[in-house]
Each structure stands twice: as C-alpha cells, then as structure tokens.
C-alpha cells in the first residue's frame, strides 16, 4: 500500500534538506515561493538556522503572527502577515532582487505546473481569459543558486503528468530546476536527466515511471531501497 506524503510531510522533508552554507555557521538563504513552499517556514529544523528571504524586501522572515497580532506593514510575497526574526532586515525591491539576481539566494523553493527533464519550468501562466501574472518567479529561477520545486501531487488531478519531457505551458525559465519534491518521490534533475533519490514506501519503480512523463534513473540509495522492499 503506497502512502503518499501530505504537503506538510513534503515541507518537513524539504526543510530537513536545506544545507548549511559553505562555511561553518554561515547558514543558508532561502526564498519560499507563494503557496505550498510557504509551508516550509512551519518546520524549523532543530539545531539548524537558515534565513528566509521574502522578495518584497525582508530577510529573516518568521512564522505567521498570532491572531490579532497581524501588522499589515509586515507581509510576505503572498501578501500574508508574517513576523521578523532576530537578525532580520528590511530593504527595497531593487536591493531585494539584487540578492536574487546576483546569486546570493542559496535556494529558491517554488511550486510548478510542469517541470521538464531538462530543468525547464512552467509555473506562471495557464490557458484562459485571466490576465497573466508572473511576480518574482522568473527572477528567482534565473538568479538563485538552486531551484527546488514542490509538487503537492506527482500527477495532476486529471492524471496529466507534471514531470514531463518538454513543458507545453509558457515557460518561467530554461534549465533552471535542480530538484523536485513530490508526494511520491524526490528527483534530482541532472545533465543526464531525472534521477530518483528517494521514494515513498510501497511504491515500485514501474509505478513511479508510469506517473512521470520522462525517463527516470534511480540513484544507488534509491535502488537499495527498492531492492530492500522487493526482498
């Protein structure tokens, strides 16, 4: 029986994977996109401090305030009230995107409509009459050192693949995604294609391949997991 991860489970896993910086005690600087990535802020990792960047001009973003404590001068990229942690700072939009575009953000965590095996991402425009809206997504994928994508479900509700050979929705950026976290697996996007590094228990390689629109390779660790289950 396959037990898919909840969005909260995925967020917890992502938080756990955020590394420390290149130097001891340097910390990582992480931007959380609107929507599901925001959940990552709710899962601090004991003994590890990282700094959350909010594109609207905030470093050191903390969790949502208690009800009644909201300050609408202090919001995140999703326009929700947040808090600021000790060590935080405010700055204007050009400075905020200088951090992003200049390669100072270690990891950008984003949602997606489609991710391609070559790292292309589509996460800003769907067909329809609504006006398009892009926000900072294109800047983030072009500027952050790593881009991680979170998918609440590995496939869309209608069964369509979200992880595909080539995106057919309007692109956010080319060759920009490094890793995908879904409810079923963790997949690295490498120059050689998709490499599964982790899977939920009970899922077979064939099942995951069926739910993925591009060829999968399985990392050593993952193969051990699979064969362990098979044994």
């Amino acid at each position, binding site marked *: 029986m396959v037990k898919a991860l909840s969005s909260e489970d995925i967020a917890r896993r992502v938080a756990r994977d955020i590394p420390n910086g290149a130097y001891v005690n340097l910390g990582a600087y992480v931007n959380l996109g609107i929507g599901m990535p925001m959940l990552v802020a709710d899962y601090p990792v004991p003994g590890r401090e990282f700094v959350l960047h909010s594109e609207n001009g905030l470093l050191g973003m903390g969790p949502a305030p208690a009800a009644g404590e909201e300050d609408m001068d202090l919001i995140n990229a999703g326009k929700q009230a947040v808090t600021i942690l000790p060590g935080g700072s405010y700055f204007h939009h050009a400075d905020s995107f200088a951090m992003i*575009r200049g390669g100072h953000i270690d990891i950008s965590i984003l949602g997606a409509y489609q991710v391609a095996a070559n790292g292309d991402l589509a996460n800003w425009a769907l067909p329809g009459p609504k006006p398009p809206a892009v926000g900072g997504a294109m*800047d983030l994928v072009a500027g952050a050192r790593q881009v991680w994508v979170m998918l609440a479900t590995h496939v869309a509700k209608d069964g369509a693949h979200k992880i595909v050979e080539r995106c057919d929705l309007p692109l956010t950026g080319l060759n920009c995604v490094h890793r995908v976290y879904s409810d079923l697996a963790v997949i690295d996007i490498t120059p050689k294609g998709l490499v599964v590094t982790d899977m939920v228990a009970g899922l077979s390689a064939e099942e995951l391949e069926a739910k993925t629109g591009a060829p999968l390779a399985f990392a050593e660790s993952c193969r051990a997991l699979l064969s362990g289950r098979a044994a």
Partner: protein
Amino acid sequence: MIDKRVSTLADMVADCPDLRDGAIVLIGGFGDAGVPEKLIETICELGLRNLTVVSNNAGSGDYGLASLLKAGCVGKMVCSFPRSAGSIIFEELYAAGKIELEIVPQGTLAERIRAGGAGIPAFYTATGFGTPLAQGKETREFDGRHYVMERAIRADVALIHARTADRWGNLTYPKTARNFNPIMAMAAATTLAEVRRFVDNVAPEEVVTPGIFVTRMVEIGER
C-alpha cells in the same frame, strides 16, 4: 528655506503640472503595504485620462489604485502581478479590453525603475530569457550565458507612501511597506509623498530616501 511640506493632499495634487492626461505614474506599494492610498484617491478627483500606471499589483477591492482604475483614469498598467485576490476591477477592465497590460517580471520591473532613477538607459538580465516575456526583446550572450536587454522606466510622477519625513524630504518607511517606494521616488520628474508623520530631522544614517528625490509631501497621520 527648503520646505517640501504641503498642508493638504488636494493642494499638493493641484500644484503638480506633471499630473496630466497621458502621464506615466509610478505608484509604490506591494499588495496593500506601502500603497499611497490617500494620495491616489485625491488624484482620482482630478479626472485624468489615459494614465500609464506602473505598480507591482493592479489594486484590490475598490480603494487605492482600484479606485483610480474604476474612475477610468488608467489606459495602461505595467505590473508584475495583476491577479491578486480581490483585483476585480482590473480583471473586469482587462476582460472588456478597456485597459492595456504589460507584464514585467518583478525583479526586472524593480531594476528598470531603479535604472530610470540612476540614469542607466538599458541593462541586461538573465530573467525571462527563453520565455514569452522576452519575446521581441533583444538578447545577448555574455560569458556563455544568455541575457535579455531591458530598458529603464522613467515617469512623470511618482506617488509614494512613507513613515516619517523632515522638511528636506528625507524619508523612512515602515517595515516591508518600503518595497517599491524608494526606487520609484528616484525615477520620476516629480515625486509626491504621503507621510504618516513629519519629524524635525531624520537621523542622517537612517535616511532611506534622501530628500533630493522628493518634491512635495503631506502628513496623513498614523493608520
């Protein structure tokens, strides 16, 4: 004596020749934070037409920028994210073909405004390369990476919201309400500010927007 303080929003707005039909107007704020709402609503009463408004969002509800849209003053919006919750008035105008829309990636929008203020006519950014938002734009390779050339935005008027100001126009901002306000203040022929509180003197190391970028301002009180 230098004194950029004006008593009322109506007086400030009346004495601003750059506020005219067809003007390019920068409006500070991100979501509802740092939007010069009272100033916008005062400008609504001028009945201007065919403004190009540059602002990150396209307003929500029927206050602030949305009221300017509703009044039919705006011919074109330049923004990164017009699809905020409650941006109904913009969506109606857009669906009816009554307003032009230029979508710009948020960081490119910020940098184009900053470039306008800093006298940089054009710059290159990797943002948007290979996407529909780079269509028709010149691209160029530097050191093996592809970039899009983007032009500066300069405006006739900037409308901004600040926390404190002294008579020279030195400004500070409240928390993330800073957002686009300081760079917009730099990029317009005339910069008008609504300010929560006038003070005698902003400490010189705490000034975020130096007075050189500010033309006129009005105290609106704490919210």
